[in-house]
């Protein structure tokens, strides 16, 4: 089950050249780009691990692709995404975030129902990947 988090997630995987063009757009707009990875695919998991520091003053997208490939080499079976943060006044938040690497097999989610007061049911998602401890999730 293909994860559909972030921009471009319904499209086929972006090629390196397409990633470079997206990163160039971010740099041209003056946004800071950073690379993050995780193996917990839950949609509420916002705290992914950072790969190195955010790259504030990189004038060229080749440098960021260098970091993306280094992260892919270190964690080939994790989700890796590229974020771009806009620091202009009034915005100060994430502008673009897209996945650049996925594990080969993505087991997906199941819906968990829990009964609360009376007949009300609360729903959450549980990802099958988190049945394994971190580091052993995608064999």
């Amino acid at each position, binding site marked *: 089950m293909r994860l559909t988090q972030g921009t471009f997630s319904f499209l086929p995987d972006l090629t390196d050249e397409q990633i470079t063009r997206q990163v160039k757009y971010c740099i041209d707009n003056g946004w800071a780009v950073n690379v993050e990875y995780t193996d917990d695919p839950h949609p509420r998991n916002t705290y992914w691990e950072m790969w190195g520091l955010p*790259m504030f*003053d*990189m*004038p*060229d*997208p*080749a*440098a960021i692709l*260098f*970091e993306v490939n280094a992260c892919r080499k270190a964690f080939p079976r994790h989700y890796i995404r590229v974020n771009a943060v806009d620091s202009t006044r009034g915005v100060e938040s994430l502008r673009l975030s897209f996945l650049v690497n996925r594990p080969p097999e993505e087991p997906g989610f199941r819906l968990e129902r829990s009964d609360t007061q009376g007949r009300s049911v609360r729903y959450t998602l549980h990802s099958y990947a988190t049945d394994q401890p971190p580091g052993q999730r995608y064999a």
Partner: protein
Amino acid sequence: MSDPKPTPGEPGETPEAQPEETVTLPEGATVNLEAEFKASQVQEVLDKLDRELVGLKPIKTRIREIAALLLVDRVRRRMQLSAETPTLHMCFTGNPGTGKTTVALRMAEILHRLEYIRQGHLVSVTRDDLVGQYIGHTAPKTKEVLKRAMGGVLFIDEAYYLYRPENERDYGQEAIEILLQVMENQREDLVVILAGYRDRMDRFFQSNPGMSSRIAHHLDFPDYSVDELVAIAGLMMEQLNYRFGEGAEAVFRDYVERRRKMPRFANARSIRNALDRARLRQANRLFADPARDLTRQDLVTIEKEDLLASRVFREGELDAD
């Protein structure tokens, strides 16, 4: 980015077309290099170089050659022939004050105008910016510098200090290895220019043959001749808004001829120092009579007595250089 090159045969060419996606020519078509040359901005770059830097014949020749290769490559791409980016790493050697750092600063702009590098910025580093102070510090430090330089030129001044064979706890070798790897694998992303004095660079290359083989252009900066030094002085004076007074230029030429034979002559830097001292003496001469009203002419002119006061003339000794 606006594309000044006229692409024949397609009036509806979209403005976002990258320079590489030009119209391909049919079999048997011919190309005209002169038209290509006029359409690019190469002549402007070469003219600017000629105007602003005096002498430096081998460097200007080499830049012209690189520009010619660029044009031919462009035309080859139009004919669907492969045109791989050539290796552009360079090494500048020469005596002090011959313009190595100045040309390196210009090279980034020139290569960007010739469209060999994408961004055209220059990152100027010395050994301290690449080598760490403790184990594990060098690799991230060097990688950070390389990432900042991608798309532009990395200028490493006094590159031989990276290699310190006598100290086994020195991490310069690690920095050199990372550099070598990036210089080879990411040739289209980065241009590295090393600079330094000739004999020390020779020793550095002897102990690092890998580095020497990755450098495509070894350029030697010759010492300037007397005419060139006087011309440089003229350019500097123009920039500083000064001019030579009556007979001062001949005196200056004489000064340069004498100073050249003396020890520790640093070419253009010595000229700059000499002009600064002349300005100092001019200021003191004008200040000797503070009540006098000065015209623009007085403020701008350096008279021959300002130059003759130098110890080079009076005693045949160096001024505090």
